[in-house]
């Protein structure tokens, strides 16, 4: 079990962070990912494996002042 943007979620073992982003429905090239409070650089999204208990924040740009 992991947490994504505050919500619990299950993913298959061996899923990469890039895979997680795609599974949620977003393009890894257009988001930023924080894993357990540390940024996961975009260049390593496909290499870093999701681990049980991970806490993710996945963000992007939206309209704002």
């Amino acid at each position: 079990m992991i947490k994504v943007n505050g919500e619990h979620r299950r993913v298959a073992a061996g899923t990469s962070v890039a895979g997680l982003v795609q599974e949620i429905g977003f393009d890894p090239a257009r988001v930023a990912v924080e894993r357990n409070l540390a940024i996961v650089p975009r260049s390593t999204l496909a290499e870093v494996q999701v681990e049980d208990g991970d806490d993710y924040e996945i963000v992007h740009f939206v309209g704002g002042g």
Partner: protein
Amino acid sequence: MNVQTQIEADSWSVAGRSFTSRLIVGTGKYKSLEENAAAVAASGAEIVTVAVRRVNVSDPSAPMLTDYIDPSQVTYLPNTAGCFSAEEAIRTLRLAREAGGWSLVKLEVLAEAKTLYPDMIETVRATELLSKEGFEVMVYCTDDPIMARRCEDAGAVAVMPLGAPIGSGLGVQNPVTIRLIVEGAKVPVLVDAGVGTASDAAAAMELGCDGVLMNTAIAEAKNPVLMAQAMKAAVEAGRLAYRAGRMAKRRYADPSSPLAGLI
């Protein structure tokens, strides 16, 4: 004839990037992304502020800002609006740098919801930390010349004093201190927040500011696209008037026609 008839190009630059437009617009509060994009186009802005927020996990197919305002055509300036501590702001901007791939950002550390006034102690602290991490920080600050200098000393690449509280539309409340900030700063000064209508933007530019940043004045106008065009004209007019150098004020009348030769 020695009259200058051509208006020279008049660009400004921040952190080594040069811009022609002196109007920066926000992308919040619009009725739709279409209206937002049309207003940005009408404003002529080359920089737009954007927020960093969680992706909507329950609706990944929702339209995205980047589909309507192309980040390769317009510079996205990530903002920390909604952050109330240096740590929150720094965390947000680290994510923004990763999402966008650039380090030019806008820092805004707020003190309270009622006034949305910046917390300058936290703001200066965050400016220093972010600058050390390689960010180029444009800093939202109070209209206080000493605080503006503190931001600059902490590494700000631009200082952005408020004209009036965010979203208030009250216009520049303190022209005296804005002018003092302009006189003292070695980095660009942009009035950020408080503009309500075109004359407010022109007034800010006439004080010698390098630019104006606004969101609500355009987004909450009855016709945002028309107001965006008005703001573009106002910023240009204010800038030209500043460069031209206004006449001195007199207490009494002074005739425009010659007195000699009166019948």
